[in-house]
C-alpha cells in the first residue's frame, strides 16, 4: 500500500510525531505509533500544490499533517499529472501569452479611451485650465499689437462649430513659434507663430483647425489616460525589480506614448484638412504652415522618429498633399 510520510501536529503544540497517510476508497487514513484515524477526503482541508512547497492536510478536529512529499500526496489524491493535463497546461500558457499580447495591443488603448469618454466635461475643462496656467507660467504676456490680435481672433472665429475654441495669445519665449491645444478647448498660440505666418491667414486657419482637431477628438485627455495605463503595464512587467529596470521601463513608456501621440497628430491633420475643405480652403495651407515651422526650427534637429511626439514633417506634408489632391485642389 503506497503512502505519504510526514509529521502530525496537535493544534497549538510545536511538538510533532511521525505519521503516515494512506488511502482507503474515499477516505484518508493517518497512522502514528499511537494509533490511526480516518476521515473522508471531502472533509479535509488540503493546501493546493505549489512546486516544492510543503503540503498541509488539516483534519476536522484541527490536527495538521504536513509533508514535503508533494508528488506522493498528489498521487494519493489521484491528481498526478497525466499527459492530457500537461497538454492543457501548455495550451493555457500559450493562450495566456496571446491574450495578454492582444489585451496590451488593443485592449489598453480601448480601455483608456473608455476612461476618457467617461470623464465629465467639467473635469476636462478643469484639467485644461490647469494646463493653461502651467503654460502661462512658461510663457510671457503677449507683445502683439491690437490689430494683430484682432486679426488672429477673426481667423479663429471662422472655425466656430464642431468643438469649442478659445484663443489665448502669449509671447512664447523658450517654446518659440508654437500652438498648443488644451483639454476643454483653450488653444494657446505664440506671438512668434503669428509673426511667422503673418500675411498667410489660411496657414494660421489651418494650424488652428489642427489644434481644434485635438480638442474635438479629446486627444489631451486620451493621452493622459493611455500614458497612465502604459505606466501601469510597464510597472507590472518589471514588477518588483525596481532600480535599473525602472529606467528601461521609463524609456519604453515614453516610446509607447510617443507612438500614440504621433497617431493623434495624424488624426488632427486629417480633421484640419476636412474642416479646411468645408471652409473652401486647400489642405495645402496646413502643409505650408508645417514647412514654415520646420524651416524656422532648423536650429533643433528632428530626433529619430520613435523618440518624437510628432511624425516627421515630410511625412505629414506628403499626407496633406494626397488629401488635397483627393479633394480636387491642384
Amino acid at each position, binding site marked *: 500500500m503506497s503512502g505519504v510520510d510526514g509529521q502530525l501536529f496537535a493544534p497549538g503544540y510545536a511538538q510533532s510525531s511521525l505519521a503516515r497517510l494512506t488511502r482507503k476508497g474515499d477516505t484518508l487514513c493517518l497512522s502514528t505509533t499511537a494509533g490511526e484515524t480516518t476521515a473522508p477526503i471531502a472533509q479535509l482541508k488540503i493546501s493546493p500544490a505549489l*512546486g516544492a*512547497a510543503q503540503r498541509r492536510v488539516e483534519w476536522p478536529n484541527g490536527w495538521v499533517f504536513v509533508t514535503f512529499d508533494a508528488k506522493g500526496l498528489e498521487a494519493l489524491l489521484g491528481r498526478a499529472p497525466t499527459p492530457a493535463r500537461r497538454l492543457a*497546461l501548455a495550451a493555457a500558457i500559450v493562450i495566456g501569452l496571446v491574450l495578454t499580447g492582444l489585451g496590451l495591443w488593443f485592449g*489598453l488603448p480601448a480601455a483608456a479611451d473608455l476612461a476618457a469618454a467617461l470623464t465629465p466635461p467639467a473635469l476636462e475643462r478643469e484639467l485644461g485650465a490647469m494646463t493653461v496656467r502651467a503654460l502661462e507660467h512658461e510663457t510671457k504676456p503677449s507683445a502683439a499689437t491690437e490689430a494683430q490680435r484682432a486679426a488672429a481672433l477673426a481667423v479663429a472665429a471662422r472655425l466656430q462649430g464642431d468643438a469649442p475654441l478659445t484663443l489665448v495669445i502669449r509671447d512664447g519665449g523658450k517654446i518659440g513659434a508654437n500652438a498648443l491645444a488644451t483639454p476643454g478647448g483653450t488653444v494657446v498660440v505664440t506671438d512668434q507663430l503669428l509673426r511667422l505666418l503673418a500675411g498667410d491667414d489660411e496657414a494660421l486657419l489651418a494650424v488652428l483647425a489642427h489644434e481644434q482637431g485635438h480638442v474635438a477628438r479629446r486627444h489631451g485627455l486620451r493621452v493622459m489616460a493611455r500614458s497612465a495605463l502604459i505606466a501601469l503595464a510597464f510597472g507590472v512587467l518589471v514588477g518588483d525589480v525596481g532600480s535599473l*529596470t525602472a529606467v528601461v521601463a521609463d524609456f519604453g513608456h515614453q516610446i509607447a506614448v510617443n507612438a500614440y501621440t504621433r497617431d493623434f497628430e495624424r488624426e488632427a491633420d486629417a480633421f484640419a484638412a476636412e474642416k479646411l475643405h468645408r471652409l473652401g480652403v486647400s489642405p495645402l495651407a496646413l502643409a505650408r504652415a508645417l514647412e514654415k515651422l520646420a524651416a524656422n526650427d532648423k536650429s533643433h*534637429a528632428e530626433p529619430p522618429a520613435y523618440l518624437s511626439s510628432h511624425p516627421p514633417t515630410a511625412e505629414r506634408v506628403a499626407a496633406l498633399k494626397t488629401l488635397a489632391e483627393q479633394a480636387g485642389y491642384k
Partner: protein
Amino acid sequence: MSLSRPDAAPAKPILFHGSTGDYFPIWLKNTLLRLATLGIYGPWARANDRRYFWGATSLDGVGFERHDDGWKIFVGLLLSGLILGGGVMVLQFAVMFVSSTVPGQQESSALGGVAVGVSLLIPLFLLVALSYMYYKGLRYRCRVTSWRGLHFRFLGDWKGTALNLLIAPVMVNMFSMYLLAPLGSKISATYLVKNIEWAGRKVHPGDDMGKIWAGLGVGLLMGVVLVAPIAVLVGLIGAALGAGALFAADSMEKDQAFFMIILVAYGSMLLIFMPFAHIFLASFRVGVRNGVWHRAQLEGLAQLQCQLSPWRAAWIAGSSLYATLFTLGLARAWAKVRMWRFLVSGLSVVMLGDLAAAVASHQPEIDAIGDGPLDDAGIGGL
C-alpha cells in the same frame, strides 16, 4: 570563537528545497495574470510567491508556512493607498485653498501663517500614517507566518515603530550626513527583531556593529567594481557619438548626434547610479542581517546563526541584474530563487530547549493593511 554553551550543540541548517525549474511555472502564471489584469492580480501573485518561498524552506524537517490571502492583501493595499494618498491630497488642497484666499500678492500674515501651519501638517501626517502602516504591516507579516503550527507575533506598537523605524534613522542620517547610516539601520533592525515572538518567547537580537560596517564597505567596493562595465560601455558610446558629431558631413547629422549625446548623458546618470544602489543595498542589508540576527536568541529555546557573505550578496545582486536585463526579464525567476537560496544558506539554528515546551501563546488574527508600504520601504523580507 566563543566558548559559550550554545555553540557546543550542533547547529541545524535552514534548507531551501525549491529550484528555478520548480518556481518558473509559478512565476510565469503570476506575471501573465498581472499583465492581463493590469496589476490587479498583484496581491494574489504576491501571496503565491510567499507561500512558495516560505513553504519550500524548512528547519528540522518541517517547512515554514505563510497564510497570505490575496483578497486581504488587495484590501490592505487599497486602504493604505487611500489613507496615504488621500490624506496627502486633502492636506495639499487645504494648503492651496488657504494660500489662494490670501488676497493678491500682499501676504496677510495671519492667513500666511495658517498656510505654513497646514503645510507643516503634511510631514506630520505622513509620519503618523506611515508608522501606523509599518506597525500594522509588521503585525501582519508575523501573524501570517508559522512554523510547526505556531504563528509568529509582532509585539511592538506604533509609537515604537515611529521612533525606531522612521524618526531615529532619519535623525541619525541627517545629523551625521549619512556617515552613521549603519547606526540608524541597526536601531531599526534591532527594534524589529526584539519584538518578534514565537510560542510566547521573545527574541533577543544579536549585537555586532562591525558586521554592519563590513556590509557597508563591501557594498561600496563591489558596487563600484560591478558597475564599472556599464560605466565603460556608456563612456564608449558617448565617445563614439562625440567623434561622429565632430566628423559628421552635414549639419543635420551633426545635430542628430548631439541630440543623442545629451540623451546618453542623461541616461547614464541613471544607468550607473541605479545598479550601484541595487548592488550596494544587497551587501549592506546582508551586513545588517548578520549584525542583528547572528547569535540572536529565542528565549531558552534556540539560538540563530546568521553568517552571510556580503561579497556574495553583491555578486548575486549584480550578476542577477545583468542577467535579468539581457533576458528582458525572463531570468527574473532564476534571480529570485538564487537570492532566496543565498539568504537561507547562511542561516542555522542551535536548539537550546525542548520543543515539547513550545505551545501557542495566541490566536492569530489577520488583516493586511500596511503590507504594501513595508514593501515600498524595503523593510522585512526573510
